[in-house]
């Protein structure tokens, strides 16, 4: 076994980031490859760790940090490992994708800069970008709330700089807006964390079960939910997401979906597993909120003409699916919800990145000015249709078994609960039809029909292989998990199955 395998997943990207920063005037385009290869390495580390975990081991690494209560311990179990692995894999995919895409952004924003400035700007993207895998790995692997808070709040800071430097028209304003929303959530997260400490005297997640039955627990859960709902863009905290997705550089769009989705993992790790009984009081209200968000997000998506906002609004809807599953509080729904979360971030990475390819190649964002691109960009059309299928829960992609397992749990909860829960469950299933409608409608608007006159020039073609191949491979991973979901479900069940009743 490779030593410090979990620590390496955080430290190696950090070192790579520092290296790129220090050599920023020399590296130039190589920075993208260094970042990508670093992430390939950490993905491989997580795969190795995953094999160990699948064999029943739990990997635990202990490192001293601030004091006896705040340690920098890392844990890879059946829940954290697949989450960290898939997120790291997506970071790798998008790092490769960014190699060409960032060039395009710099040309668009800083056309007049000299070579030195160009190199500095180009490399700055990648040393900032590496903050994402550090943050994601940190959030999923740490074992105490303060460390989780640290990594969780590292992400919006990275996001702020990348968006402000490489985003679109209103990038600085929206980057600031995004940071403020994150700060608002952070306040509640910190409040929840401190309240927890005040009650049990520790920040350790494994000790949170000591809160069971405590009168303050409801407030602690509420505090964490108020921190995480804005991140998940749950209605009525969704308004930041269309802005942020519209203005950020599309090469990080998939990561923004991961950033929003990681809240689902936190809900399971921090709230549902240790505090299931106390969480029950939130079960139906959260399910209703999730349902409203699912339908609201779908309707909002249909109203969009901007391909980037289109993908953003669909995220609002899709994130709520996982939440619906988690709130149902059964083994099926929580395991399915987590599986759906991973499937969704893969699908969303494909869909967002396709939107990025379209903007990169055509320079057009308005879907009304697109049409007929299927004949010119068949690979891009294929990636979009794969993304659409993944979002719509169609076989053979992983979202099909994920959605099925999740809704099985939702129905198990709903049939036993008051009738309103069954109504929520049935309407929740029906919302899938809306997803099918908007994703495939988008397909029709962009790729089908006669080719628009403004898109008939020779430069309109499929993107370079570094952009398309990683995305196609992501689709293949999703297909493998869809055809053989046993691997991931076994991993989840090691942790979730023992703590929740079936």
């Amino acid at each position, binding site marked *: 076994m490779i030593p410090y395998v979990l620590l390496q997943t955080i430290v190696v990207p950090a070192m790579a980031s520092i290296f790129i920063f220090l050599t920023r005037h020399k590296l130039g385009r190589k920075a993208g490859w260094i970042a990508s290869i670093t992430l390939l390495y950490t993905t491989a580390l997580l795969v190795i760790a995953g094999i160990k975990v699948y064999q029943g081991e739990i990997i635990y690494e202990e490192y001293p940090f601030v004091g006896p209560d705040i340690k920098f311990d890392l844990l890879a179990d059946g829940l954290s490992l697949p989450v960290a692995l898939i997120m790291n894999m997506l970071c790798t995919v998008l790092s490769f994708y960014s190699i060409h895409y960032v060039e395009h952004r710099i040309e668009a924003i800083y056309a007049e800069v000299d070579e030195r400035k160009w190199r500095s700007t180009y490399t700055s993207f990648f040393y900032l970008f590496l903050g994402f895998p550090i943050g994601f790995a940190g959030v999923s692997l740490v074992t105490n709330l303060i460390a989780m808070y640290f990594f969780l709040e590292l992400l919006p800071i990275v996001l702020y700089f990348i968006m402000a430097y490489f985003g679109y028209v209103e990038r600085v304003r929206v980057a600031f807006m995004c940071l403020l929303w994150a700060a608002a959530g952070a306040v509640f997260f910190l409040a929840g964390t401190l309240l927890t400490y005040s009650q049990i005297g520790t920040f350790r997640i494994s000790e949170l079960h000591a809160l069971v039955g405590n009168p303050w627990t409801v407030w602690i859960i509420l505090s964490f939910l108020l921190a995480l709902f804005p991140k998940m863009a749950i209605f009525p905290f969704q*308004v930041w997401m269309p802005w942020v997705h519209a203005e950020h550089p599309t090469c990080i769009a998939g990561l923004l979906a991961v950033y929003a989705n990681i809240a689902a993992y936190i809900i399971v790790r921090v709230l549902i597993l240790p505090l299931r009984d106390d969480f029950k009081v939130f079960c139906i209200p959260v399910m209703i909120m999730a349902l409203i968000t699912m339908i609201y997000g779908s309707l909002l998506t249909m109203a969009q003409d901007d391909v980037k906002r289109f993908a953003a609004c669909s995220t609002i809807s899709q994130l709520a699916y996982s939440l619906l599953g988690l709130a149902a509080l059964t083994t099926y729904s929580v395991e399915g919800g987590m599986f759906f979360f991973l499937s969704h971030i893969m699908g969303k990475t494909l869909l967002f990145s396709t939107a990025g390819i379209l903007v990169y190649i055509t320079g057009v964002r308005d879907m009304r000015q697109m049409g007929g691109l299927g004949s010119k960009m068949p690979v891009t059309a294929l990636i979009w249709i794969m993304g659409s299928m993944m979002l719509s829960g169609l076989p053979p992609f992983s979202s099909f078994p994920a959605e099925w397992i999740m809704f099985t749990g939702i129905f198990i909860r709903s*049939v036993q609960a008051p009738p309103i829960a069954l109504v929520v469950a049935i309407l929740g*299933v029906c919302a899938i039809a809306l997803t*099918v*409608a908007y994703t495939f409608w988008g397909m029709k608007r962009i790729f089908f029909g006669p080719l628009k006159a403004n898109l008939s020039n020779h430069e309109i073609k499929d993107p370079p292989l570094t952009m398309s191949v990683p995305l196609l491979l992501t689709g293949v991973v999703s297909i493998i998990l869809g055809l*053989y979901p046993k691997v991931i*479900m076994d991993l989840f069940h090691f942790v979730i199955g023992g703590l929740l009743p079936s």
Partner: protein
Amino acid sequence: MSILFAWLCIAFPLIGAPLSPVLAKIHPKLRDYGEVFLSFLSAVASVMLIPYLFYPSKLPMESAVVWLTVPIELRVGVLIDPLSIVMANVVAVISFIIMVYCLGYMKGDPSLTRFWMWMNLFIGSMLLLVLSNNLLFLFMGWKGVGLCSYGLIGFYYKDENKYWIGGPPPTSYCTPSHAGLKALVVTGVGDVLLLGGILIIFFYSRTLNLLELYETSSVWIPEMAKSPGIILLLSLLILAGPIGKSAQFPLHEWLPEAMAGPGPVSALIHAATMVKSGVYLIARFIPIFYYGYWVAGCSEASSFFILTAWIGAFTAFLAATQGMVSLELKKALAYSTVSQIGYMMLALGVAGLNSSILVEGFTSGIFHLVSHALFKACLFLCAGSVIHTAHSIYLQDMGSLKRYMPYTWIFMLIAALSLIGVPPLPGFWSKDAVLASTLEAHNYPLFLFALITVVLTSFYTIRFIGMVFHGRESENVEKLRQKGVHLGEGYRTMWVSCGILAIMIVLAGILGPRLGHFLREGFQYNLVEKLHLPVEHVKENSMHVSVPLLSVIFVIIGAVPAYLLYISHRLDPKGMLEKYPTLKVFHQFFWDRWYINSLYYRFFVDGIIKLSAFVAKSIEDPMDRFYHKKLVDGIIKLSAFVAKSIENPLDKAYHEKLPSLITKMAYNGLMRMRTETRELLYNVTYILIFFIFSLFIMLWVIK
């Protein structure tokens, strides 16, 4: 060994789908023949299952592998029983014939690689649907065929005018990409509701395995019946899937537009196979609901049969009326398909309405499915050849094609006569069985609907045969002839495929009663002996004898006016409409599809678009303004208020007023504390205080 054929049956086409681009890289011909060959292997594998129909005692057989162990243990695999064998053969054999036809029909198409991928993926998904041993993989196949249907309807995704369907103006056109999306969304509505139904079943039964569901129905159905309304809800949810996929009212409106796909696609998906998956699913659920109603005594379970029968009968009638006025050949056939599936639904519905006709109803529904698959596939393939030759989808652009396409005429006529129900073709036997089952259920309104539809079927079938092959040549055909366009049979693979189907129809007709009996034996053994469903034995109903007679009489009632109007032309259709205004009103009503399609567009499509615009404008924008403008403005105003109204006064208080006050007071105090003041009173007071203070000190020290 035998069960291996069931696996192979699914595997061959599924291998063929991803292999298409690989073979295309080597040689296009290798791709074409390779893809057809894989469908041939699948057909052979399915035929190898037929001998088991002769030994029903060996059935059902199952083979499965572990797919999931947690949170649910799910073993997925194949199930061989009479129903799955019949369905697998219908799907695999007809699919192979259609694939052969495609060799000619699709020749030269630049997107053939994609075409073969979709076709084989479709065949594989359809076989997965009918051979799966559990509801999840059945549903996987179900979703798969829906997706392939979308891909194949929208195959000509560039939406060139020549592929549009609908019209002529003022009636609107529909592009292939729109038609594909419409099919996906409409059937998708049924799919998600079906998923809801499956999940409710799983909650009560804790299994998705079909055989286990049957075996444990005595436990979970009574448990389910304890919650009032659940079985009714389940019936509605389960039926929604078949209603969508099999294009039954109220989700029938996608099928006419689905004809935008290539001709053989219409034959394969929208006539012979996919649209039958709903019928298959209902047949799969019949033992469960039958047990619920007739054994467990759950009255709600009857709703499943009542709804199925009435939806079927009404759809049969509704679609037939639209078929009578259609001007597009493939659309007329599409309406006919919807109508004939209605018959199948009717038969399966009545199977549970009476405890004595379970086997008859079940058999007649599946028998009609088999015979319809044969003759409708033949009709669609022939229609493809006709459209290929006439270069038009419209019936009025054809006429007198019999002289140019004699083989196609014969094949299409055989299939058409079978559709009408002319003895001794299979359509006659199977429709007769459906009518007899309906009559035996003693549900006379349903029987009346079915009989009226016989008249309509006869009328519209003769109408399109007359308009295509008889009468005078249309202007379009004349023009084509003058231009020197080849007017004749299509490629050999095309008419040979049609010929094979026509021969199969004739053979099925000759063997019709025996075939029906054979199917009946198999289903009876499975339903009664294996699944122990109780069936009441009654004496042969004397009315049953009159059904064939009635059927033929009603065929003639429909055929005579159609013959006079469209073949002999003794009557003028346009003149008739002018002469009888009521007829014109009905014609318009049927032409406008009972206004259901336009209503759906107005209510659902426009409604959802408006609702989404409302959400964006009236909810999202105000929320956005609230968070990002009003809240920010509010905070800025609050900070300004804090700065102006609190900070400034405080600032003044601390930094101006308080120091000045202190300074003033200190000055005054100091001034008063000076001993050298000119105010005697202050001086005396100070002296007095000093002395009192000194006195206290002294007293405290002395003490």
